[in-house]
């Protein structure tokens, strides 16, 4: 699914990733850990085909990251839940999800069940995104991800700003996605919570992988 060897990614001339080696297999839930500025978000953006590969080699879902055309294919087959909502503040929840479903060429008949499944189907559907709480916005962003049905889910701090039920909800969605064949990579500071989900934890420091551990076991060397 993900194969990176010595991957370097420059953001404004700064090496946000300085030679990352990482392999992620089908159906894994890999958690990225590391301090702020370690390169977790950039690694997710690289896997989404949004950040440039300036050195090393990398393939995502068999597509070469160094090719602009192949990066476009990667984008269509991956889903990124980032710090930004990727939603239009001025439009309602329903308008946003219908727009992104059409943009992503998703089956329009899936929109209603997804709105209901994510508790966005009641009065919330007509509320503008700008009037939602942080947790409700997160749910709307997740709804777009679910519509996309990506093969790889890239989640950047998915639990940030959510209450207990919101965090449980995200965990359920992740487990559900994996059950239906997706692979998940999560960057998170919420160690206790994500360690319950992870099949593997990868540690990043200074734009490089410094260690990895299977499940909850810590201290193994990087793969």
């Amino acid at each position: 699914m993900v194969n990176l060897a010595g991957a370097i990614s420059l953001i404004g001339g700064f090496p946000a990733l300085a030679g990352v080696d990482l392999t992620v297999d089908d159906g894994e839930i890999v958690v990225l850990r590391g301090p702020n500025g370690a390169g977790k978000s950039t690694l997710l953006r690289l896997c989404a085909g949004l950040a440039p590969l300036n050195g090393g080699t990398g393939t995502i879902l068999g597509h070469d990251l160094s090719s602009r055309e192949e990066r476009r294919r990667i984008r269509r087959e991956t889903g990124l839940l980032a710090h930004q909502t990727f939603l239009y503040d001025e439009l309602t929840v329903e308008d946003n999800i219908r727009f992104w479903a059409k943009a992503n060429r998703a089956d329009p008949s899936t929109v209603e069940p997804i709105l209901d499944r994510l508790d966005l189907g009641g009065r919330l559907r007509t509320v503008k995104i700008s009037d939602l709480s942080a947790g409700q916005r997160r749910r709307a962003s997740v709804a777009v991800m679910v519509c996309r049905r990506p093969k790889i889910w890239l989640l950047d701090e998915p639990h940030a700003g959510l209450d207990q039920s919101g965090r449980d909800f995200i965990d359920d969605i992740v487990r559900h996605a994996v059950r239906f064949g997706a692979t998940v990579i999560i960057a998170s500071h919420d160690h206790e919570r994500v360690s319950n989900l992870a099949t593997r934890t990868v540690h990043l420091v200074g734009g490089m992988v410094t260690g990895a551990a299977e499940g909850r076991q810590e201290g193994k060397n990087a793969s």
Partner: protein
Amino acid sequence: MLRDAWLMASKDLRIEWATRVGMGQILPFGGLVLILFGLAISPDLAVAGSDGRSLLAQAAPGLFWITVLLASLLALGRSFAVESTDGNLDALKMAGLDPAGIFLGKSAAVAAQLLALQVILGIGAFVLYGPPLADLVLLSVIVILATLGISAAGTVYAALASGLTVRDTLVPLLVLPVVAPVLLAATKATEAAVYGPLDNGWSWAMLLGVFALLYAGVGMLAFGPIMEES
């Protein structure tokens, strides 16, 4: 491509309908500029050899198009502000929409908003400046073609600046020189539409059509690489 263009245009117009920025802010801005031109140039000043027409009436076509250009800068900035504030440009890239379709859709939405503004600003210019009108059909064609040219060229450069923190100040610097030929041709054509001779007006209108096609063609080709870099 046309499906993606329609999707983008309808989304942008829905956002405009929800926020009323065009009618609530850009239109009053254009109206104020028209009034300020009227205050700066006295209606009593006559131009020698112009059958007693006031300087304001004589300059009305140029003043109208400068007003439209200034208003279009706001509309263009707004068009890409909604894409860049919450990372939506990245989401558009991930959706795999045709870049040419995105360009056409965003240009069409800006053009539709500008056309609506120009109907009201045009009436305002006739009321405030008092020029005659020789041919309404020619004037309508000029307005449509010039608007297509301005929105196509402006969309390219607004996209170019959209990823930058200095985009608000950079967009006018990039757009105004590029649309200067449209301003010139639109002013000349409008002069002909209000004062005649009409043949001159149709020649300038054809030139505006060429500009619109040229800018649209360049935009469709360039928008993919521009989106990649922004």
